[in-house]
């Protein structure tokens, strides 16, 4: 006869000293834990609820400007510094950690319309409606204590006066050039007082300029004649032009720059014009600021926003930026304040212990697994909206639905094939020119 009995000596399963950690034993056998799916579902539901409870995205406001904030620039070399320019010509450098002004850059006579920082983080370029471009040295405020530097003022390295008012500026990635937009597009070098190159296509004002981070020679502009123009610095003339009839139609359109005949995705949710867009450093999501006094965050391929931020006091948002580490969002608005938000509303700030992190990962995975179930979906999707926006959104929905219905009826009563169905991605595009 051979016999063996399970026998455990208590010493092997308990700790020896009171300072020791408790011993933990795992057995992943599914038979030991029944109704796993039910438990997982309950956890997903609770996680979704807790996420809502902990969604406190507003971190703080930074006041100091005496007029509306018109533009912002982040310093690619310094995480907690951000520049902001206002309508009265004031430029400030902020310390995000302390939410204080570190330095001021006085000089502009009219509104500051564009701000950008060179990739090495040494030079700040500003331009405005006073027809000047100013180059500034970025102060090394790491050595200074923030308290005594509050009234600190810098002097520009260079002031370039030009023929027309400027509406936007952007610096080339990794190079020495920057582009300004106004009545025409000018390419500037740091050391020259006149532009090195000038582009013009059509007569309308260029409102915004943005360089491509991957291809340093490419940049795009948008102008007030509803067109988007792609430029290549290596060529003497603009490359392509896209004309849309989507003038302030509250949507964002993302395009594949190679295929401009249809939008990749139409991001709709705002109820008023979108004033500014900024991609997160990962490129997976972007933030928009709108004239409807809200900031929204979209997935790069999501047609509806995943997050909406608003406060009672925040007025029309003119500029938004993702912080360089992708954890914060900064918005500048009409009420002269910069506001700091968390990019993920319910994220815990500060360092997470490995256990906490793993728990969070687990809860995220479970939530993802059960996101299709009605109860979880409802809780995850729900956002509180301010009343005017809620009403405007309802109205917009009604209008869109009515339009759709009308279109449908028109189609039903016309000859088959005479009204081809055009997807919304293509509907707003009028023309693409080479």
């Amino acid at each position, binding site marked *: 006869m051979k*016999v063996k009995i399970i026998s455990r000596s208590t010493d092997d399963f308990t700790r020896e000293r009171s300072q020791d950690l408790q011993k933990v*034993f795992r*057995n992943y056998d599914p*038979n030991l*834990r029944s109704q796993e799916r039910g438990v997982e579902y309950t956890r997903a539901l*609770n996680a979704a609820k807790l996420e809502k409870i902990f969604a406190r995205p507003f971190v703080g406001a930074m006041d100091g400007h005496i007029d509306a904030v018109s533009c912002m620039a982040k310093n690619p070399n310094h995480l907690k510094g951000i520049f902001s320019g206002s309508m009265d010509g004031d430029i400030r450098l902020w310390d995000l950690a302390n939410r204080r002004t570190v330095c001021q850059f006085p000089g502009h006579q009219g509104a500051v319309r564009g701000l950008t920082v060179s990739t090495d983080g040494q030079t700040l370029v500003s331009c405005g409606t006073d027809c000047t471009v100013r180059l500034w040295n970025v102060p090394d405020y790491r050595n200074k204590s923030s308290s005594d530097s509050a009234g600190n003022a810098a002097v520009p390295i260079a002031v370039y006066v030009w023929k027309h008012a400027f509406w936007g500026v952007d610096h080339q990635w990794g190079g020495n050039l920057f582009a300004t937009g106004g009545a025409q597009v000018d390419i500037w070098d740091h050391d020259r007082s006149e532009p090195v190159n000038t582009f013009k296509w059509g007569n309308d004002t260029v409102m915004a300029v943005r360089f491509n981070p991957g291809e340093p020679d490419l940049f795009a502009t948008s102008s007030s004649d509803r067109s988007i123009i792609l430029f290549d610095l290596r060529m003497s003339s603009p490359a392509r032009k896209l004309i849309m009839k989507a003038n302030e139609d509250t949507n964002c359109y993302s395009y594949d720059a190679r295929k401009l005949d249809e939008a990749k995705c139409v991001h709709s949710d705002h109820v008023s014009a979108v004033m500014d867009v900024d991609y997160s450093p990962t490129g997976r999501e972007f933030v928009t600021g709108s004239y409807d006094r809200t900031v929204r965050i979209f997935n790069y391929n999501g047609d509806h926003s995943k997050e909406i931020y608003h406060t009672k006091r925040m007025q029309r948002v003119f500029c938004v930026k993702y912080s360089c580490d992708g954890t914060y969002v900064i918005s500048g608005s009409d009420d002269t304040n910069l506001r700091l938000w968390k990019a993920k509303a319910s994220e815990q700030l500060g360092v997470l212990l490995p256990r906490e992190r*793993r728990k969070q990962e687990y809860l995220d995975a479970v939530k993802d697994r059960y996101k299709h179930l009605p109860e979880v979906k409802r809780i995850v999707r729900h956002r509180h909206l301010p009343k005017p926006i809620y009403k405007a959104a309802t109205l917009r929905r009604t209008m869109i639905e009515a339009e759709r219905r009308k279109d449908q009826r028109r189609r039903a009563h016309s000859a088959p094939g005479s009204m081809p169905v055009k997807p919304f991605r293509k509907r707003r595009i009028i023309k693409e020119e080479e």
Partner: protein
Amino acid sequence: MVVRRENMETENINIGIKQENLEELDPKAKKYLRGDGANLEVLRDKRLKGQLSVKEKLYGQSAKAAAMAEKWLLPTEHGYLEAEGLEKTWRIKQETILQEVDIISSRKPFDMVLKDLGPYRFDYTLSGRYMLVGGRKGHLAMIDMITMDLIKEFQVRETVRDVVFLHNEQFFAVAQKRYPYIYNRHGTEIHCLKEHGAPLKLQFLDKQFLLVSINKFGQLHYQDVSTGEIVGNYRTGLGRTDVMETNPYNAIISLGHAGGKVTMWKPTNPKPLVTMLCHHGPITALAFHYNGHLMATAGIDRKIKLWDIRKFQVLRSYSSYAQSMDFSQKGLLALSNGSQVQIWRDPVGSHDYGRYMNHSMVKGYQIGKVCFRPYEDVLGIGHSMGISSILVPGSGEPNFDSWVANPYETKKQRREKEVHSLLDKLQPETIMLDPSKIGTVRPPRKKVRPSKKEVEAELDETVQKAKSVTFKNKTKGRSKPSKKAKKKEEVVLNAKRSFRELHQVEERPLKKQKVDEVELPKSLQRFARKKL
């Protein structure tokens, strides 16, 4: 929880795994896969197919990682009893086993003789550490089975029919003469659950925090002990019974009735989910296997049947008798009959249970309850003269999981676990026959009603068929064109009528016609149910 946790380990462990090793592990890994993967071949959506195939791959990896980790995570080996030569395992006596085992194990079997306070029932906590003992005449005691300390002993001076632990050893429920009561471990009465009536049997569903009782009048009560809410109160309508068991796999309550029926209940349904006729004559005992597929029933007709409760079919039927039964974690089946205890085993996994061990108590002891102690090779026996326990090698799960049930739980761990289990408390709606259905999509109904168009097309076809019938050529003017046309018309009409009749019957099943209430004779009218 499990799948995800394992995913994290996958990355760490996979580095060391070699390809051939993986193939060896496959049979072990199958257990962790929790069934077959989805059939992705039928999917037309390529994106979804890709996403799902990535997921399936992850599941496979995590199952393999779990199988790999068994070596380190499961330190204790399971028990066994093997006969050598001409020996038979069922002839081996407890005394013989006792001489062979180590000291710790030899302390586990005991006989507690408590003559006066009548047939005893008992219950173990989920971790198997604590035992609650209840004597018919009101004797209640809680024992720590590791240290063999008596934690509390008291008298309620009332009939005690059943005892059951709640979610941990801090609270227990007792079915007393008129009501179930809840006590804490110090013996203080916490609640008296008057809504339940006089209970015969109690069960506790730990995931849902539901206390279930069946009372003298065959009423089933579900009460949430965390909120105090009565979740369900249903009349079984099948008479008094004290055979009630929980299926640990899906928390469905099964009742065995005097008519030979077994009914399965969930708290949100006033009618049983399943009613099955299992025996001719009253059912004496029920037991459920841990994997949730196997049910054993015993009846007064001297039959013991094993059922596949996925198909509700008999797998095996044995001529034997049992007053109480229990499945162990490893699938041994204990049966008691009079003062005899038999333990059956399924040696090859084909549901062919055979004798494994025998044990006889002192003659005249009536065994009321047998129950395996979780995570130990021990069978507890409650009988008319007290409580006993015997060694049954190979019955318990050798490795416990600290997060599921920990026999060596400290006070802090216990408190933490209480909070977590309350956070993860399942709603009563989650109790269903197949709990893995949660979060899945109901497959489309197979039979789709034919659309109007289809019906019309079919009608056309029948009409055409009727029209194309050729008639025999007849004489004496019976084949005149007018006659022929008339005949054809008739045939078509007939075909149409028969088609319509056929479809009407299919489309609209006859509604239950309201029968006008018959006027009762005056003398009987006072017994009629009053209209509201």
